[in-house]
């Protein structure tokens, strides 16, 4: 390790940004080393980002977005690893909690400018930490002892790893997007549509007072097709089809995308004409991508380590280690090291988390038994170390978050058989039909104690599968709702058709990219509620491209 660090330090010396960050960090720590309330930890995170988006509507180009920025995030901790300024102050306002000081850094290697921006932000962050440390100490004296007495910051090995900088590769996609957007606009019921390609090239830097010095790249491309329609009952329907990849070469080819555009346009028209769903409780199948989001919302957020610590948190799984949660053939891991799953790029891949800890696999459920939590550097009772899941967007304090959450089964059931099981289950429960949730737009969950500890998986559309053999019926306007322990206990079987949902997850540490992977799941009993709907009438006049010419 020492040899590795020495070898790398030569390469790091050639990066003026890292040099400037290190110089200001050293100067600050030296100045505070004899101060009683000086920081015991100081970290500089820099996100160097180029964001490009090209798009097209109705065959015409949208304005190009092309932004380059370098943003600084300063993290200072005052106190000790056992108890420090980041500790929860009970009863304190949620607002501002976990926020870091930031700034815009020069795009070049101007050391004077970089250090001056860093200096001003460091001063503010340390002052914030000092002020908060005083409040933490008072809180500890005034209020009752906390249930979880674990430390505030784990001790981890510093890492030195300067990887190659990422470069953005742009392809001539505008013409393809124009063609796709024309196809999307072909039906009169589609009031708005877009084809777009977004690309981000990130270089993540981290320099800390513990000796960590990192530079690691990330590239991300998303091609997305969007349609919007409005049903006669006022429901606004937004349908998407997208894929995320790490290299432009892995984007789908034009014929594939054209087929997607045609399918989406046709399907938008079908969904807008479909009847609205009704409240339902009974058996259903979540197809792969929807099942992934179900796992993310029901289990994933509740096994984020820091949630086992807060007195306001529901702590659903805190004391469930060793308990059977799911059928014995099912396991769930979260592994940021995975780059792909069955040919699909995974959005949650990274080499190091935002606290500089190498990515590791976290086993959450093994053979149906709950095994452990996702961990950042905030220890909890029974878990004193990070497993590389400390994540945050810029200017936020990292907390444990999901990356690539993967549900797998040792007894995959062919999909046709799973569907037959659904009909049988519906019949056994005396239902007219079972439901298949095919596509979802996302979801959310509440994990605290003040509100119902519940989840909502937002279905785009669903199918009624009748037990008497009638053809399946498309419905819209339903969401999947429930509570975690009951929902997990109702999982009956998993299919042989793993699907990948790539997206971005929002929580207290901001928006972070992640993936959810799962085969279809048959669930014995779950509830579906009506989705909220708008009240605007569809446009009064036909759109100009469909007979509107004067």
């Amino acid at each position, binding site marked *: 390790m020492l040899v590795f660090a020495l070898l790398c330090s030569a390469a790091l010396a050639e990066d003026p940004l890292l040099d400037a960050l290190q110089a200001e960090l050293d100067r600050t720590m030296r100045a505070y080393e004899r101060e009683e309330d000086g920081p015991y930890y100081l970290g500089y995170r820099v996100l160097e980002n180029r964001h490009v988006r090209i798009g097209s509507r109705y065959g*015409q180009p949208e304005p190009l977005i092309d932004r380059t920025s370098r943003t600084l995030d300063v993290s200072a901790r005052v106190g000790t690893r056992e108890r420090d300024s980041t500790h929860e102050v009970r009863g304190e306002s949620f607002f501002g909690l976990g926020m870091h000081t930031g700034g815009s850094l020069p795009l070049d290697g*101007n050391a004077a400018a970089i250090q001056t921006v860093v200096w001003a932000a460091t001063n503010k962050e340390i002052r914030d930490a000092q002020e908060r440390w005083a409040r933490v100490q008072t809180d500890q004296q005034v209020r009752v002892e906390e249930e979880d007495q674990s430390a505030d910051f784990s001790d981890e090995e510093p890492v030195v790893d300067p990887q190659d900088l990422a470069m953005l590769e742009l392809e001539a996609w505008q013409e393809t997007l124009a063609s796709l957007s024309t196809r999307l606009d072909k039906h009169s019921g589609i009031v708005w549509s877009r084809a777009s390609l977004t690309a981000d090239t990130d270089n993540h830097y981290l320099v800390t007072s513990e000796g960590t010095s990192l530079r690691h790249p990330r590239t991300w491309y998303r091609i997305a097709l969007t349609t919007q329609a409005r049903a006669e009952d006022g429901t606004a329907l937004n349908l998407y089809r997208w894929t995320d990849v790490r290299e432009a070469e892995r984007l789908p080819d034009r014929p594939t995308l054209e087929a997607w555009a045609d399918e989406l346009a046709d399907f938008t028209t079908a969904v807008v004409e479909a009847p609205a769903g009704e409240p339902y409780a009974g058996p259903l199948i979540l197809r792969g991508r929807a099942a992934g989001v179900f796992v993310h919302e029901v289990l994933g957020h509740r096994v984020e380590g820091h949630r086992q610590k807060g007195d306001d948190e529901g702590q659903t799984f805190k004391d469930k280690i060793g308990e059977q949660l799911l059928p014995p053939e099912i396991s769930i891991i979260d592994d940021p090291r995975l780059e792909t799953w069955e040919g699909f790029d995974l959005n949650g891949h990274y080499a190091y988390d935002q606290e500089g800890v190498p990515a590791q696999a976290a086993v959450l459920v093994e053979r149906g038994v709950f095994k452990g939590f996702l961990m950042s550097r905030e220890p909890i009772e029974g878990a004193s170390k990070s497993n590389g899941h400390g994540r945050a967007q810029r200017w936020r304090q990292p907390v444990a978050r999901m990356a690539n959450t993967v549900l797998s089964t040792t007894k995959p059931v062919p999909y046709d058989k799973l569907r037959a099981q659904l009909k049988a289950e519906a019949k056994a429960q005396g239902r007219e039909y079972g439901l298949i949730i095919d596509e979802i737009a996302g979801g959310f969950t509440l994990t605290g104690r003040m509100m119902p500890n519940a989840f909502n998986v937002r279905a785009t559309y669903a199918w009624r599968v009748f037990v008497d053999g009638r053809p399946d019926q498309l419905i819209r306007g339903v969401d999947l709702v429930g509570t975690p322990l009951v929902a997990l206990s109702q999982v009956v079987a998993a299919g042989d058709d793993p699907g990948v949902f790539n997206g971005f997850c929002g929580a207290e540490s901001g928006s972070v990219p992640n993936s959810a992977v799962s085969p279809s799941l048959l669930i014995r009993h779950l509830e579906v509620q009506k989705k909220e709907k708008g009240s605007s009438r569809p446009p009064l006049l036909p759109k100009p491209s469909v007979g*509107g010419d*004067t």
Partner: protein
Amino acid sequence: MIALLALGVAQADPLVDALADELERSMGELELGESGAPYFVGYDLMDITYTDMDAVLGSVVQRSLVPKRKLGVSVRVGSALLDSANFQMTWRAQDGHRSRNTVLGDDGLSLRHTAWFETDAAYKDAIENLSRRVAARARSATGGEEAPCFGPGPVQTSTSEAVSPVPFGDLEPIAVPLSAVFLDYPEIEWSRVYTGAENGRRILVDSLGTRVIKPEVEVNVKVVARVRALDGSHATDQVSWSVSDLKTLPPLEEMVAETTRMAERLKAWKMSEIADEDYVGPVIFEGEAAVELTRKVIVPALVGTPPPEKPPSGSRTFLLPGNNNGTTMRVKRRLMPAGFHVRDDPGADPTLPSSFRFDDEGEAAKKLDLVVDGVIRTHYTSRTPSKEVTVSNGHGRGNPGKLKRGAPSITTVEVDRGLSSKKLHRLAIAQAAAYELDHYLVVRRLEDSAAAGASRLLIQVGGEKAGPLAQPIVAVKVFADGHEEAFRGYGFVGVDNRSLRDLVAGGSRSTTRTVRYAGSGTTGSTPVTLTAPDLLFSEMELTAGGDGGEKPPALPSPLASMQ
């Protein structure tokens, strides 16, 4: 004949044609139940390329070049006497003005698609808003405003070429050296140079027959810096240049020199004594402080577009914040003492970005004598007029998709007998005697409160709203023998348009600045050029004391050890 020719040229543009076609369809076919068809539909297409580049301490920190096409839609239902516009909006209810970014290219059908979608939504909004207004007036004891709702002038047609965008390469040689000035000033805690250009064209098409294509040109350079004194007080200062063409910026050496003067000024502010007692007595606003006073106090009193009509008190309607009441004064009221005049001439200097032939509603811009001998004679008026000026005088300004409000273009405050600096000094000393003072106060610069917020949005596009005067950055006590003592920490108390009656005299020297003006804050900001003489007030009240901010950084700036 000329108008017809211009109309023909304008209609040759595929985008104008597309908007006109969709407008005709909307006016002819849009009708929902008994609510009636719109009586006015207007399209405002801003077709502009935004080029931005910011620099800090000799390095670029941000750059973007964004071609943008934004379509604003205005739909009015009802009649010119009672319509849907300018009634207070709520979180859910809009007033018939909408906007949306639209696609590039010359394909008219695509533009029509956006126009169709937004017109439909704006029409439905307008119907709801008129209904709310009618219901509110029925509840009101007075029955609402007597002013007409819509007052267009003669229909205009005109065309002009778009202006080409400014490339990054032209901004960097300005932004970088100006920002590098602060490398020599470790006392300055924060600095940033904002450069930006907005070049293109604006297309105005409406159901009255307006067909105007006008150029959009603006180049802004703004240097902002902040310093903190030992007692925690801080001051933010700025210098800025706003021109219509990069070539008309001053030579770089001159800009660097002015930036250096600002840095020195902030350094001096940090070291100056803090005022320890409140002040009541004569005050002279000199140079840029007089321009700032004009922007904050004089101009808002002359805006004719009334603030949005509100439901009567007692209504449970939850209103949107930001629509303030404004401070417009009625025509024939005295604003200033006799001998003072305020004029506006949009065509006074066509090279300025504040100059225009047609306003943002396509009305012909008119020269205005706003204040004559201290008395208000007219207002800056848009098509949403005041009770007394019922027809637009071509001063409607604002962003696409917003109700256009009356605003200045090139406004000059004049005084009949401007005094020399010496005479102004003698008069101020004489005025001070009445307050048993051996000195008077001169304010030379005010803090730019938008810049103090240090937000790019506020600094670059937010402009300055009407409101209280910011703290003076340069305030000196001037004694009878002419010597000066600089102080910091003063703040104005209760300066508004009533304070203008305490004007005693104006100087023979005038200062001109092109700045941004945001009016009531609901329409976006626009460039305006203001000229004002030094202004002596017989009495003004200022409180003393710092702002109680955070103490200076614990460590010296890294620049201190790099020099």
